[in-house]
């Protein structure tokens, strides 16, 4: 579904993505793991077209995403730190996104809006929100349009345990529907029950892309956190 081919990206002198190639298919739930500053978010942003790579190309359903924009209607993106127009209310932001992305055919999925109890906060301005509430809005927006691909950048960071559990259940439910899900997270223990594949990055390079079964077999560890820890130590 998404194929990245030898993409490179430099910010000034810093090489953030170094010849990264990834293939992501439908029905997979992929964890993007790696130390801070290893290029996970940049990779996600280049898939979304927010960052334009220096060389290499990315295709979505066989089409190069450069100069394309329509493909983003099949993606729900939850950013690491949601940034929204400060003097809009939650209700206005939700309405605006519905207005911008409206296709009559897609049924809106308001499950998270309801479960996160955002309905009672609709009149609150974005600048007055706490980090956690902001994350809830981001999550609700990502799932709202029932997209075929979900890209979640640190989805549970800042969420309270109840909300994190709701979100996790939602991710599992969407995975069961055969959607492609890309997650980055540092809380490996919560990924165990979600993911089918692992992409490990370090210093802008893709170290490996394996199914979780292979990774467990290779490292001899049952838990993802232990498996990754042994990989990280080996690479040091």
């Amino acid at each position, binding site marked *: 579904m998404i194929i990245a081919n030898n993409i490179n990206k430099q*910010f000034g002198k810093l090489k953030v993505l170094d010849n990264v190639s990834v293939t992501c298919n439908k029905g997979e739930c992929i964890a993007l793991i790696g130390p801070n500053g290893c290029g996970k978010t940049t990779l996600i*942003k280049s898939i*979304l*077209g*927010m*960052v*334009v790579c220096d060389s290499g190309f990315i295709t979505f359903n066989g089409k190069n995403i450069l100069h394309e*924009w*329509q*493909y*983003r*209607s099949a*993606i729900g*993106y939850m*950013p690491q730190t949601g*940034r*929204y*127009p*400060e*003097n*809009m209310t939650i209700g206005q932001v939700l309405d*605006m*996104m519905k*207005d*911008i*992305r409206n296709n009559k055919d897609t049924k809106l999925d308001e499950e998270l809006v309801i479960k996160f109890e955002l309905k009672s906060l609709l009149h609150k301005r974005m600048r007055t929100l706490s980090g956690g509430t902001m994350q809830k809005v981001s999550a609700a927006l990502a799932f709202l349009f029932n997209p075929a691909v979900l890209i979640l950048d640190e989805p549970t960071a800042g969420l309270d345990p109840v909300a994190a559990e709701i979100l996790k259940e939602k991710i599992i439910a969407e995975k069961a529907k055969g959607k492609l899900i890309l997650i980055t997270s540092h809380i490996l223990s919560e990924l165990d029950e979600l993911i089918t594949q692992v992409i490990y990055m370090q210093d802008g390079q893709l170290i490996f892309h394996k199914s979780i079964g292979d990774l467990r077999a290779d490292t001899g560890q049952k838990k993802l956190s232990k498996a990754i820890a042994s990989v990280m130590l080996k690479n040091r």
Partner: protein
Amino acid sequence: MKKIIKYVIIDILRNKIVLAYTVFLLLLSFSIFNLEDNSAKGLLSLLNIVLIIVPLVSILFASIYVYNSAEFLELLVSQPLKRNTIWLSIFIGLACSLTLAFFVGVGIPVLLYEFTATGITMLLVGLLLTIIFVAIAMLATVNTRDKAKGIGVAILLWLYFSILFDGLVLFLLFQFADYPLEKAMIGISAFNPIDLSRILVLLKMDVSALMGYTGAVFKDFFGTTTGLIIAILVLMFWSIIPVWLSVRKFNRKDL
């Protein structure tokens, strides 16, 4: 595209600066026309103020607005929208609300007191200057990431077009006083939209005699229909080219 323009305009109207700008222009125009017994003289005073204030407010408001809507831009770029559409919508939203403010603030008094060819020319020139300086602000902001630096660049650009450019031209004229520069001055004036606007309106006011021989040459050129059309075209270029350059830059920008 219409939807995004709508959201930009709603957002601009919600912060009261544009409203204050409109009221300020209204008060200014009415008080000038009421102070002078001859409304043609009033128009001249108004012209001088308009040529300073309109570019300044347009360039500053537009650049600050673009920096403040960084979050909005970021949100929209991850959505199924063309980058061209996003950037042009912000430009059109800004240009529309500021030209509307100018039209209400200066246009209504001018149409009431001085509904003449000169008055209309000044209105047209003011509207074009608003659009031009919004366009220049878009170009300045897309090229500078840092907010403080970007706003500084915007102020410097305004300073250049309103004051420094005239100084440079004067310097040039004195240095090359022995050569016939009158014709060349027409070309040079095309490099500054504010000067070009001033010349256009002054010529309509028949005070070009005050500008000496250069004034006569200007009158010969800009007084004709072709000259006028060329001048208007040059002003349009001044609004289109910065926007076009900024769109190109925005399409490759990392957010």
